[in-house]
């Protein structure tokens, strides 16, 4: 009887030990994916997840990290309030080691303080608002462009390509800025204006207008009088269409037109103006460029990603999926190997050490995160968006040079020559 009791007791203790997972090391690395899987942002969140999943599968097939596979745990951030509670759940209940998110600025802004409080590393893949990274957080890192860097990519393009090709100089160039007046247009316009002033460019006109306007002719007349060489704009569909028509009506010509998003980044642009859309430039992300500008590992990863995406989903690779994949590329190829663990401080130190040059990711840019004390601490300052030129209904990358598929055509011919 005593022997039986000892045996039973030993079995009892052993079973407690075996069943209590905290005693044994976790089998997997748990990464929370916090994005909208349902609700208004669902399309973006779900696409983003496809990229993250493909990247994770690719890593797991090679054995994962430190003998452990990566397990993705979804958090459905339907709106900012739920984003907060889901972030809490991922951290306190699911006990994730780090979080990737968020594919929506308002959700990211709401959820990231939760991770910061709990000292959990948060990698932002695809939200744009500047203010996400302006709070001095220690554990928040954004790999993609914020709104400011996206906007000033237009100025990099002007600086590197447009001014030289037009035989102008920083002193002689005349730049006009034309933006719709919602949050997007205003912040883009401000960022571009500041960057132009940094280089000493002459801004001959800086106008914002309401996108619901039914007449832009006074603005077009002002532009005619100002005689700019280059026009940088952010316009949506109705106002962009109206502007282009009225510019043609009134014969207002520029040597270079650069759209920074909106209608100029959509196929609607070429649909509405089959021939007249040519020569316009647009700043935006993309996956079709000269891949020899990438380092060879990134080339291989990009090819594999596109192949898997097409096999499983659809022919045209969605940009949010690519942003998800790209964020994971940074995480799995640069940050985690350097960190050696998923401890938030280790990840943070590893991130801050990174100095990856151009060609280091599937969007072309490398990475150097803004250090603590910088107003945009945690932002990848090397992120930018490519410049593409519309021609024959298609957009082709023309900048940066390493990724360009062709030379940009400058100057833009006048209206009656097109």
């Amino acid at each position, binding site marked *: 009887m005593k022997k039986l009791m000892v045996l039973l007791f030993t079995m009892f203790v052993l079973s407690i030990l075996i069943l209590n997972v905290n005693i044994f090391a976790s089998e997997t690395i748990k990464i929370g994916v916090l994005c909208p899987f349902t609700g208004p942002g669902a399309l973006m969140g779900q696409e983003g997840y496809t990229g993250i999943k493909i990247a994770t599968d690719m890593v797991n097939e090679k054995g994962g990290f430190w003998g452990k596979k990566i397990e993705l745990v979804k958090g459905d951030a339907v709106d900012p309030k739920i984003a907060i509670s889901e972030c809490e759940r991922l951290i306190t209940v699911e006990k994730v080691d780090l979080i990737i998110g968020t594919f929506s600025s308002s959700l990211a802004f709401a959820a990231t303080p939760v991770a910061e409080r709990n000292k959990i590393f948060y990698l932002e893949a695809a939200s744009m608002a500047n203010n996400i990274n302006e709070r001095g957080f220690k554990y928040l890192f954004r790999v993609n462009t914020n709104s400011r860097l996206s906007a000033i990519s237009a100025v990099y393009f002007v600086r590197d390509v447009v001014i030289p090709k037009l035989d102008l100089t920083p002193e002689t160039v005349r730049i006009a800025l034309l933006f719709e007046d919602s949050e997007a247009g205003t912040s883009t316009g401000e960022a571009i204006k500041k960057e132009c002033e940094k280089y000493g460019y002459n801004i001959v006109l800086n106008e914002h207008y309401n996108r619901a306007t039914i*007449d832009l*002719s006074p603005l077009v007349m*002002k532009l005619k009088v100002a005689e700019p060489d280059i026009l940088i704009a952010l316009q949506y569909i*109705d106002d962009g269409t109206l502007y282009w*028509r009225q510019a*043609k009506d009134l014969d207002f010509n520029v040597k270079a037109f650069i759209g920074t998003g909106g209608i100029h980044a959509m196929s609607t642009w070429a649909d509405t*103006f089959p021939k007249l859309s040519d020569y316009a430039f647009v700043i935006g992300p993309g996956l079709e460029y000269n891949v020899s500008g990438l380092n060879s590992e990134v080339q291989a990863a990009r090819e594999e990603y596109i192949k898997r995406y097409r096999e499983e989903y659809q022919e045209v690779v969605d940009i949010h999926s690519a942003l998800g994949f790209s964020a994971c590329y940074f995480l799995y190829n640069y940050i985690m190997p350097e960190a050696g663990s998923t401890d938030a401080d280790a990840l943070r130190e590893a991130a801050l050490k990174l100095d990856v040059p151009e060609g280091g990711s599937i969007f072309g840019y490398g990475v150097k995160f803004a250090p603590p004390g910088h107003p945009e601490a945690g932002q990848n300052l090397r992120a930018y968006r490519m410049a593409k030129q519309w021609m024959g209904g298609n957009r082709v990358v023309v900048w940066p040079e390493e990724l360009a598929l062709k030379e940009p055509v400058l100057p833009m011919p006048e209206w009656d020559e097109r």
Partner: protein
Amino acid sequence: METIILQLAVNGILLGGLYALISIGLTLIFGIIDVVNFAHGEFLMLSMYFCYWMWALFGVSPYFSLLLSILIFFFIGRIVQKLLIWPIIEEPMLNQIFTTLGLSLILMNGALLFWKADSRAIRMPGLAQSAEILNLRFSYPRVIAFIIALTIIALLFTFLKKTRMGRAIRALAQDRRASMLVGINVDYHYQVAFGIGLACTAAAGALLIPIYNVSPTTGQLFCLIAFVIVVMGGFGYLQGSLIAGIIIGLVESYSGFFLSIHLKEAVYFMIFVLVLLIKPSGIMGGKER
């Protein structure tokens, strides 16, 4: 500089013509038969969609669809008047406002349901031209719209002044009860008036689609300006609407250039208020229609 000043005038006048065009129908409906039609913008939007689809599906130019659109919307106008407006014709203005506001919401959301929120644009390279005369630019679609607006105004004016039916409608506008007493078929003539009003609005839609994109909310853009023009023009005077339209077009053009694009609406609203303070019955109002 003179070229600039003159071009601004051309732009303003052509814009004013567009404004007058979109308010002709409302001049008749609000100004003459005194029905507050808050769905005015939505009928404009529907006509734009109709002409868009005629182009998209059958390749028909909006200048041809114009005629079909006028016919279709004339009948729609009669039906709307019979089913929706006639029952509330004696009711307080507030009821009319709510009814037509409700209609506006139904039409907007109906358009959203059927055609989604995407903006639609027609592509007619031949129309995307402008003529240059004496160093001034004249956009074809806008000039065509201006000429047709003048034509419609002239035709409508003659109709109201010279024809029997037109006189009956004017009688209705003056006094509904008296009209009934003299044997005018009030219901029928209201229908015709409403029908003509919508037909004019439909014409405006056909002339706008080469210039503007259409989406379910496009009507909202034009609705307010149409009301301003009708009131400023004298509440039912077609010539007044034309004058008001041109004044507003010119004011927008010059203030947008010399002051700021943001102020142009403020400026014309100020002028609107001034006109009403000085002459509350509008530019041409106060006389017998």
